[in-house]
């Protein structure tokens, strides 16, 4: 899970989930804590989905 996807691609990560911002990849301080947690959960769920998906090459999971 990373914000700068090209870096993850360069270093060879296989399952990549794009995140919000460098200092808060899994959060957004401009939202309320409740909204933020919903956002974080959706990103983590996407990571779990990525882990459960068969892939043959580097894949970016945008949804």
């Amino acid at each position, binding site marked *: 899970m*990373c914000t700068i996807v090209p870096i993850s691609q360069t270093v060879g990560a296989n399952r990549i989930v794009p995140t919000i911002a460098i200092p808060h*990849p899994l959060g957004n301080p401009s939202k309320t804590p409740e909204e933020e947690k919903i956002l974080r959960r959706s990103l983590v769920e996407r990571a779990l989905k990525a882990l459960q998906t068969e892939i043959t090459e580097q894949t970016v999971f945008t949804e």
Partner: protein
Amino acid sequence: MAFRIVHYINQFYAGIGGEEKADYKPEIRTGVVGPGMAFKGALKGEAEIVATVICGDSYFASNMDEAASAIIDMIREYKPDAFIAGPAFNAGRYGTACGAMCEAVSKEFGIPVISGMYPENPGVEMYRKHAWIVETPDSAAGMRKAVPAMAKLVLKLLKGEAVGRPSDEGYIERGIRKNMFYEKLAAERCVDMFVSKLKGETFETEYKMPVFDRVDPQPAVKDMKNAVIALVTSGGICPKGNPDHIEASSASKFGEYDITGVNDLTSETYCTAHGGYDATYADQDADRVLPVDVLRDLEKEGVIGKLHNKFYTTVGNGTSVANAKRFGAEIVNRLVNDGVTAVILTST
């Protein structure tokens, strides 16, 4: 007076034996042994091999620290001006031993250290930054090419002559950047390079990008409801106060922290050690980097089997690829031993 060189070879090149003698313990003999004869000719009397260290490849590989320090002690009284190891061609254990000895000798005596290896020898990747490694063919049939090239380079180093670029001198890149003055401005050289590229002509970059290795994608997790998921981060999240003093940049270590019973990371308990991004948001709520809170919820709801009770963390800020690789290998080892199914790695 000729420069003094100590030469390192394995049991095979010393004529002691092959694999059955690979447990041979280190010894030192005065003068040349085996390939040292060829070096004697190539050094043209300007330098002399005063002693030869012989060590079995398996012995060295299984007792690296012990063997290296014993050999250092043996070498000391010969007062070498330079150290030659090998050439090891494509022999993996031999190459690793040559590289490790070059590193140890260079650290201890501060003298030029040189070896010769085939580029795919694992010793190259491990030690090319610590030694001058001349590129050789993959087998001992290349001895006649390797020795003169190594001798030429060691004499240059001994005489303090300027050493040119890897492609000119025949050694394997060490990752050293040197400032150079050119007649042409950088902008002009850059455009020239670009034009050559467009024309399909050969051109040489002035700054190579590091080469990263690739791993095959791992199979998908089949049974998430029973999976153990671990969290690993390069975002520097650690218990408040950074108890292990993980460096804010160029990290030399990673941390392992127990989160048994931790359901939420708060500003009272966790922070970031990272010095490469604005820490404000991570210090306020470290879940923004390491999503423990959400994974606890998913664990309770039975979406995942379990959140692993330890997380691993380092600071990915100017951290060397070599260190990062070392951390990765060690962390994976521990995760596998603990029966972890899959990992979510977060980076900032």
